[in-house]
């Protein structure tokens, strides 16, 4: 059994967890919620084991590097941080409905990593530019930030769903947390995300400075991370100073997460892209 097969199984465990959370929400079965939590914990254990095994396998192959070096590994880590952060919030705030919106994101990340034909799960040796501890710090910081934004996105979606139908008090929506709680949670998550995105951009800049002698070069990936940062900075100001709440914040949070996704995946679609290939 190698790390790839463990991670493939984990994908289905996350799918099951998401299913249980949604089932619990739709049919108001608190017992299913407990099951969902346990399934999510099992999934997290598998995800953790997968990461650690992959790390060890890379040493066995003689390459020996932390498993944060390519798209596959980053997606696996993304799923991991989403679930860790979500479970933390669940235990802190005690609301499980958020799980119905968040665990599917972890499932999608892992499913994309395992199933997409464009993503290789082979362990590759590190090219010279990637041999840096700053890179590890960079990836970890970015993905904690991304996962906080991902959960904020899930919560904002819940908020928008809830807001739209307040007139017709549907029982499903009643089961969602109070709009005020969702709004507060979004704000907390975006602060965490903003702190870690800032740290991610900064560690990336320090890494770029040690590899290429420039901390900022306006390449598309850097620029998109800055665009994301601008969007969330304007969200924080709108909320803090202009008193925006609720719907407008939720919309900005959705736009911000779209920018995150573009930074992560979309940049590869842009013309004339830099690659690490040069060195």
């Amino acid at each position, binding site marked *: 059994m190698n790390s790839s097969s463990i991670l493939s199984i984990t994908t289905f465990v996350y799918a099951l967890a998401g299913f249980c959370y949604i089932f619990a929400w739709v049919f108001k079965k608190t017992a299913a919620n407990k099951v969902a939590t346990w399934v999510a914990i099992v999934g997290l254990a598998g995800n953790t084991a997968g990461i650690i095994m992959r790390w060890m396998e890379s040493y066995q192959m003689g*390459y020996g590097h932390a498993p944060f070096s390519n798209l596959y590994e980053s997606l696996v880590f993304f799923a991991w941080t989403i679930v860790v952060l979500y479970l933390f919030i669940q235990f802190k705030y005690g609301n499980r409905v958020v799980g119905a919106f968040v665990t599917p994101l972890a499932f999608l990340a892992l499913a994309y990593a395992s199933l997409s034909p464009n993503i290789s799960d082979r362990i*590759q*040796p590190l*090219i*010279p*530019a990637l*041999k*840096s501890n700053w890179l590890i710090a960079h990836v970890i910081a970015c993905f904690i930030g991304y996962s906080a934004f991902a959960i904020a996105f899930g919560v904002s979606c819940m908020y928008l769903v809830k807001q739209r139908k307040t007139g017709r008090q549907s029982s499903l929506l009643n089961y969602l947390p109070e709009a005020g709680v969702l709004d*507060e949670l979004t704000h907390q998550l975006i*602060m*965490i995300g*903003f*702190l870690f995105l*800032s*740290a991610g951009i*900064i560690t990336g*800049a*320090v*890494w770029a*400075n*040690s*590899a*290429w*002698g*420039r*901390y*900022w070069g*306006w390449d*598309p990936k850097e*620029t*998109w991370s*800055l*665009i994301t940062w*601008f*969007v969330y*900075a*304007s969200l924080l*100001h*709108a909320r803090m*100073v*202009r008193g925006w709440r609720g719907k407008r914040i939720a919309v900005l949070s959705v736009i911000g997460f779209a*920018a995150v996704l573009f930074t992560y995946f979309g*940049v590869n679609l*842009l*013309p*004339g892209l830099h690659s690490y290939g*040069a*060195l």
Partner: protein
Amino acid sequence: MPRQETSVGFFSKIWDFFASVRLTIVLLLTLAATSIIGTLIPQNEDPAAYFKAFGQFFYRLFNILGLYDMYHSWWFQTLLILLTTNIIICSLDRLSANRRILFIRHPSFRLSRFRSIKNKAEFTVDEDPEQLQATCSNFVSRRFGHHMLEKTGNGFAVFGEKGRWTRFGVYAVHLSVVILLIGGLVGSIFGFDGFVNIAEGESARVIHLRNTHKTVTLDFAIRCDDFNVSFYETGAPKEYRSSLTILEKGREVIKKDIIVNDPLRYRGISLYQSSYGKIAPDGAILGFTSRKTGMIYRRKAVIGQTVVLPEKLGTFVLKEFRHAADFKGHNIGEAFVGALTRDKDPAMQIVLPLRFPSFDKMRRGEVFIAVIDPLARYYTGLQVNKDPGVGIVYAGFILMIVGCYVTFFMSHQQICIEVDKGDKATRVTVAGTANKNKLGMQVRIAKIAQRLGSQARQA
């Protein structure tokens, strides 16, 4: 004087314009939206390529808008300057508006304010207020920086506060943005960004600047002693390593091997491993096979130097290396060209193509010459930078992270414990405020009341 009034009015209008957070949101979102353009149009490419891609009209239009080097265009820089002005003026405005909250040594407390807070925690004990005074006082002084005791009609109140300084977190974040921009500016004014290719064994001091045709001459020379590239079995590159020596007036000062991610820094100038390439070899290991005896003699031949062959086979001189040698009208690729001289015969030209090792056999001479190892030479491509702004930028980075942490996760808190003698028992009320995370503060107040209750009962 109406004139002065209008000028003051004008000034304060401008001030208000730049102090507004609405402007901030507009600027941040505009920066976000316009930044996208530069990721759609590849930057700093050859004008001809743009012309081909966009056609004459759009080529001209984009050129006027500076979209080929967008992030340095006048309008983008203007946006950045507006944002900087916005941050500075807004922060000054807020600092002065909030100076009574921010800059005080000894905070004062108003009991009525705490009494009007809705969320309070209360409990009753049997002891008299006097018996509780020390406990409450100690409790607050241990947890809060400032504390104060006030006598009331039939009891007392203890106030405490901490974290007033955390209100400066926001200003630290804003200052950090300004510091980053200053650092960038210092770098672009006083620094340079260039490259140099140095062949193994040679040295250089002239650096070519990027995106211009200018050069910079360094005060010292860089010598490349050796360059090595290694590969994994997969063919992917593993390491690029240049052994460099810095020479001051011909004297060796520093020797260091640089690899990607580990540059050499000397006198404010940094040398980064950035590329490499092959250059024409200046010699080769050759094999001379004698037809008579079948013996193979290995000799190192350096271009221009004569090799005397054994068995009276003659002398051989390596003349040059050609990237595309020609043989009877055919391109036979990379080859050495040399001359073989035997006895009194005129020198004979010998072509030694690298791709065909037994090429010289066709000549059917007394000696057959083959290249065993072309002594390949590399040049190393170094990125050579001077950026005196990096220290400033890094200081800005640290300030930004610390500032964000303080702003988001720490708060200015005040509490008040009021102890009042009632008819039957003594009533203890705990109330508190925080400038952020008010939900968290409620939880904290409840916890404080619980702790205090158990301490009071023990006392």
